Each structure stands twice: as C-alpha cells, then as structure tokens.
C-alpha cells in the first residue's frame, strides 16, 4: 500500500488501460459444483462493471474469486497483477469485498468494529473516522452494538470497513440491497468518487436500472459463464481435466500406470466408471 496515503496510483496515460482483472476460461468450484464453468472477463482500471444474472449464475463466486478467496482450478486469473493460480493471498489486502455476510462482530459497537477492521488493514486513523462519516454513521449510531442494528445499518457499517481500507478494486455483491433511497444515492456517489480517484469497481446487482446508469458496461453471467451480448456462452474446452494425475513419488503413481499398461496389454475389459 502506498505509504503516502493516496492509495490509488495516479491516472497517467500509460495507466489508463491497465488491466485490473483478467480472467480466461476460469473454473471455480464450490464443493463439487462448478460455480464458474469457464469465465472470460477483462476489466480495466477505472471501469465500473455490472455483473447481471439470475440467482445461482455465479456472480458471488466470481466476486470472491477476484478477491482471492476462492481458488481457480482451471484457466487463468490475474487480478491487480497477481496471478491467482499461483497464490491468491497477496491480492487480498488490495481489494475490498462487500458481500452478503457482513463480517461484523455482533457484540462490538459500530465504532469498535470499523476501528478493528481498519487497524487490521493498517488503515490510517483519519481514514477510519472519515469512512464512518461518509456512510452517515456518526453520532448516536457509533456506540450501538452491531447486533442491534437494522440490516441497512449493518450494510453501511460493512461499507465503512471497506472504505477505511481504500482498496484499489471494489467488489460489491448486491450493495443496494437493504439500503433506503438516500443511502443508495449516497453509495452511488461514493462509487463514482472512488473511481475518479483511480479505483475500479465490479458490482453484482439485481437493481438493473440504477446499476446500469452507474456502470460503464454490463456483463451477463449465465450458469457460470459469461454470455457476450447475443453470443454463445464462452468458456474453455470441456473434458479438459486439470492435472490431477499422480506424480512421481505419489503412492498411486506406479500402481495405476502399471495397471493401465497391463490392461492395455491384455485387453482386460472393465466397465467404465460412470
């Protein structure tokens, strides 16, 4: 993070088309279910991209993948210059994720929550205080326990935790849900302001009217793949299995290969495991 306090790199012409998110044929699993079945996505710095799609299409998973929380099992994924297939951890402190769960401790007050997460991310004290002010959590609400807040207030507290970190990439999962009209306008303003300072925003939303007005472009996610407008679902070749074969030194190595050779030689018919 930039020690001088301005965390966003300056928008020099050379930076303008810098790729913040690059996904190619990315496959991510939730348990055994391929939530992302081959996603191609490119987001440049300063863009606001809207992810639309039905429930279960994989929007949340896509956002979590960009945050480095969900591993990619096939394909490429590069976010903010970090290769997520190699190690997803370094990218995490540079992104801000506003998810469905709030990440708040119910027994602590709003103030204590935001301060804790702020200090955890090594944010400046001033940023923490400013973040709370920006979402309108000043005054009486600061000393209320998080468990006692309304859903919208909890959302705003989470947002304050995100703002305090001043991340370069904002990943927002249905950020407008639970907020009243004023708060939604406020959020839109915050997004625009952050982008003008060099951040990039990817948001998933069902509020298509409002979000489309806000976003530079919309990307539709259908059943784990990105559907370009009017095109076929993109994605890698099916049947391509990521390297899961035993390596040399793995206990299964000799037996399976030996067995294959033997079966090939003697033509032992065994039923294909379906």
């Amino acid at each position: 993070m930039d020690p001088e306090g301005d965390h966003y790199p300056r928008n020099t012409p050379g930076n303008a088309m810098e790729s913040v998110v690059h996904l190619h044929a990315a496959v991510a699993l939730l348990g055994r279910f391929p939530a992302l079945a081959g996603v191609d996505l490119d987001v440049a710095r300063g863009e606001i991209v809207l992810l639309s799609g039905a429930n279960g299409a994989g929007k949340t998973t896509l956002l979590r993948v960009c945050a480095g929380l969900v591993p990619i099992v096939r394909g490429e994924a590069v976010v903010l210059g970090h290769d997520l297939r190699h190690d997803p951890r370094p990218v995490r402190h540079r992104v801000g994720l506003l998810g469905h769960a709030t990440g708040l401790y119910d027994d602590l007050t709003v103030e204590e929550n935001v301060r804790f997460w702020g200090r955890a991310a090594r944010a400046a004290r001033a940023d923490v205080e400013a973040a709370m002010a920006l979402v309108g959590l000043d005054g009486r609400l600061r000393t209320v326990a998080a468990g006692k807040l309304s859903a919208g207030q909890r959302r705003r507290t989470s947002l304050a935790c995100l703002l305090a970190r001043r991340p370069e990439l904002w990943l927002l999962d249905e950020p407008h849900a639970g907020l009243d009209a004023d708060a939604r306008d406020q959020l839109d303003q915050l997004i625009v302001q952050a982008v003008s300072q060099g951040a990039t925003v990817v948001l998933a939303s069902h509020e298509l009217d409002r979000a489309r007005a806000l976003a530079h472009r919309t990307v539709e996610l259908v059943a784990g793949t990105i559907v370009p407008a009017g095109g076929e679902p993109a994605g890698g070749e099916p049947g391509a299995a990521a390297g899961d074969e035993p390596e040399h030194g793995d206990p299964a190595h000799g037996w399976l290969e030996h067995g294959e050779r033997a079966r090939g030689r003697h033509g032992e018919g065994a039923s294909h495991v379906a």
Partner: protein
Amino acid sequence: MTTSPPAGSPTAGTDAGPDRPDRPASTRPPAPAHTGSRGSRVLGVAALAAVALATLYGLVLSPADVEMQDSVRLMYIHVPTAVFAYVGCFITTVASALWLRKRTPGWDVLAGAGAEIGLVLIVVTLATGSLWGRPTWGTYWTWDARLTSTALLAVMLVGYLALRRLEDDPSSRSARPAVLGLLLVPNVVIVNRSVEWWRSLHQDPTITRLDPQIDGDLLVSLMLGFLATGLVFAWLLIHRFRVGWLEHQAERLDLDAALAARRAEAGAVAGRAGSAEPSGPSGVSGVPA
C-alpha cells in the same frame, strides 16, 4: 474391505506444477474392476501362509510359558498388532505431512488408509491385552501405562477418522484432516511419555514382561506373529489405498460431467438448442443445487 462413502475429490488449484495436457475422456483407460495386481496377490498368498504358520506354531507347536501358561499365546498377536498399529499411525503422519507439502491426492488417501488399519489393529491389541489380563491378574482392565495410552490412541484415531468423514467440501477436503494427521504421532509420543511417567510412580506390572531369556519355540512363535501381522498389514494397506484412490478418481470424473452439464445449462438458457460444445462422458447426472 470397507467401502466408505466417496472420499476424495478433484483437488483445488493450488497445484505446484504446470498444467498437464489433458486427455479427452474417451481415450482414458477404463477403470480397474478390482484392486488386485500381481504383486498384491503374491503378497496375499504369502500373508496367508504366514498366518497359517504362525497359528500352527503359536497354538500347537510351541510350549506354554512357565509363568504365563497358555495365555502367553495371546502375546504372539498382541505385541505385533500393537507395533503395527503404531506403524499405521506413523504412516498417517508422514502421509499427511507429504500431502501438506505436495498436495497430490494420493497422500491423503494413504493417510486415511493408515489410520483405518491402525484403528483395527489397536482394537485387536486392546482385546488381546484384555483377554490376557483376565487369567493373569484376574481383571479385564488395569491402568498400566501401555493399556492406558493404547486406549487413548484408539480414541485419537476415532477422532481423526470422524473428522475425515465429515468433510463434504472436496476442495478443502484434506487440509484439516492432514493437520490433524500430522499431529497424530507427536500427540501419541507426548501422551505415551506422560502416561508412562505417571504410572511409573505406582510401579504397575506392565503387560509385556517378555523375558530376556525368551528363546526357542516361544521366540519363533513371536517372530512368526510379527511376520504374519506385518504381511497382513501390508496387504490391507495396499488394498485400502487402492480402493480410496479409485473412489477419488471416480469423483474426478464427475467434475467433467458437472462442467458439461453447467455449460449445457448455459447454452439452453442463452436460447441455443442443444449446446454447441461436445459433452464430456455421457450419462450426465443432475447438477446439484
């Protein structure tokens, strides 16, 4: 052999090496219908022979011990099973460590196999020890160091296996049991030392008072017991491992099927009649919610 519910899964993408070129599903060799191989059959025959020989010697040919009478015959099973149970635990720990280092699924399967067979052997150890104790001390259980720490080891193995059973998220399946497996041997060492120290304050009779002068037929019987137990252990381990490996492979194939189904769903939703992509293996099962 035990057929536990599908154990392994496609391991998530923290692979160390480069992507391997993929073989299309249609050219993959068919899965084996059984877990035998020439080597394991030879081993099995040898194990059977050793068991027969050990039984012969242990029950019939060797004389009863001067002090312990016929109950010494239980020792020929009790001691080897105890030793090989510890070997099983050792395998679990080493395999867990190697899994954590390399993340190839074979090590995880091996760790589970070692623990399962270890547990079976531990139960035999405890049973034979208990049966031995009855005529010798008049009681089925005594709190001597060996039995107590063996009982604790049994509980630790049960806990480890319970943790493995609970993992239903395959991508993170193995990290937790692997850490637990890694801690198994250190825990056993600490527990054994503590219990021995504790019981030594009370000078309890230990269960293996094998005389240094044990020789002749008694020693032969014991050695045969070791041989038989060792061969059976190896044979069980190999087969259990292979069964586990096949379960893991079966789940991996599901991934291709599920991917194809997901894409087909995308194609259908996008309004295309039938996906333009060739599907993976046919007979695609329904996509889980």
